[in-house]
């Protein structure tokens, strides 16, 4: 019962998106199926551009996050240096004060940097992810020190050690973080809304909200089609890799 209740809103959206507007609130089994709503939505707003923006944004954020945070996590996990605990505490602060909260001030920084309305500006506050550093540090610390020493005896330098031993062994954690990061930034809304104001930079979520609110003349069926369209890639990914998704989200939460 509860499960049915839970999927009802989704099914309802699916129903109306795939049927002509006349059937959007009449459930007749023989109602003709149609893709027209999707075509209309696609034609009414530059969704192709929004898709490109979002894909570019998500890739950019994930790539930078993984490279920067791997380096930092490695330093925290395996090296001893003065100021380590203070610096780590500073990293943890970000888990508390997420960039979403600092909208006003970050907007001003972007203005000073001349980056307002760029995709780079959407990503910048998220590049150094306190969460990624924390997660990877935990993973790296669990790697046996013997491996580390063996590699050093073989004449491996620090970067070689990181690249040949830690990165390969940290892959599951990186994959987990990757899934969480991609779905988070695919879905992120508030900061992109604030920092973008043109079609060229707007990600899908912002584009969708504008499409759904400004065109009051648009039919529900079309809005629903657009809504499903924007979430489809994540949804498909989730259906295909269900287990990985659930495990990643869980791992990310517990640590």
């Amino acid at each position: 019962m509860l499960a049915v209740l839970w999927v009802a809103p989704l099914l309802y959206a699916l129903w109306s998106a795939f049927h002509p507007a006349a059937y959007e609130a009449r459930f007749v089994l023989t109602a003709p199926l149609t893709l027209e709503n999707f075509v209309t939505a696609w034609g009414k707003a530059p969704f192709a551009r929004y898709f490109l923006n979002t894909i570019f944004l998500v890739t950019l954020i994930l790539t930078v996050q993984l490279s920067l945070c791997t380096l930092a996590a490695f330093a925290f996990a395996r090296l001893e240096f003065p100021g380590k605990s203070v610096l780590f505490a500073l990293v943890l602060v970000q888990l508390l004060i997420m960039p979403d909260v600092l909208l006003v001030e970050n907007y001003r920084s972007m203005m000073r940097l001349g980056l307002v309305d760029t995709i780079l500006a959407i990503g910048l506050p998220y590049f150094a992810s306190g969460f990624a550093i924390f997660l990877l540090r935990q993973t790296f610390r669990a790697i046996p020190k013997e491996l580390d020493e063996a590699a050093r005896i073989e004449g491996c330098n620090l970067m070689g050690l990181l690249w040949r031993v830690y990165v390969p062994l940290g892959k599951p954690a990186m994959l987990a973080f990757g899934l969480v990061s991609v779905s988070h930034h695919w879905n992120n809304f508030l900061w992109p809304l604030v920092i973008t104001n043109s079609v060229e930079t707007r990600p899908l979520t912002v584009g969708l909200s504008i499409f759904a609110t400004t065109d009051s003349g648009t039919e529900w069926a079309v809005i629903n089609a657009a809504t499903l369209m924007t979430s489809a890639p994540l949804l498909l990914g989730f259906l295909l890799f269900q287990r990985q998704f659930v495990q990643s989200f869980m791992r990310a939460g517990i640590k």
Partner: protein
Amino acid sequence: MLKRDWIHAWLLLLPAFVLLLAFTHLPAMQTLIDSFWSTPKGRRPSAFVGTDNYVRMLADPIFAKAMWNSAIYAALTIPASVMLALAMALWVQARFAGVALMRMAFFTPTVLPLIAVANIWLFFYAPGFGLIDQIRGLFGLPSVNLLGQGGSALYAVAVVTVWKEAGFFMIFYLAALQTIPPALREAAAIEGCSSWAFFRRVTLPLIMPTTLFVSVNATINAFRLVDHVFVMTRGGPDNASMLLLYYIFENGFRFWDTAYASALTIVLIAVLTVAGIGQFFVADRRVHYR
């Protein structure tokens, strides 16, 4: 040798820390400073005003409304999503036909963008032809505009949050339930323990750490998730669904009153910090169960 390690470490940390400082720590500090200054207007530069912004906040009825709403919103969504999550987990923990499908049904809202979720629900709530009104129609009840009425808008928004969150929390409960040794259940069965008693005396205490963890998360989300407010109500009608973060957005980017927005941000950070400290406290205190 040691010295070299230091330099290596600092070099490794450098890029991440430049960004962290530039976009988290410095802005947070700057926000605090700004909250004691006035908003620059036209040719009038910003001036030090002490606690004026905070004094104004105390007298601001919309701020009071936003805080009160945030509190109600938290008080509704936290217990509801946590209890539902536990119920779901207990349910889909067993193995029976279709259980995978059920798990999927519960978890799917988690991967959807909150904006998309809001659109779907907007349609659901739509007066006249939305599903809720159609069901009411079957019972001969008049049509209602749940989002358009001051009395129900906040609750309608809270339902959406619960819908999105509960499945996410469910997976933590599922993991926690799997750590309960089956021997306990067998022992309890031999003692003639009813399944309700088992749940209350064994399961519930054992999953307490998870409950606390999930609750803290729900608390943070209650103050952080406002995307759906943009689509569904825009804080209205008449501020009935105004939440703190949305009010910050309005002040900062609609009225361009950045100083007041900074003061509001400080309040939000304070709330999040208290929740975060709660989390550390909880994480330290509750491990003794294992």
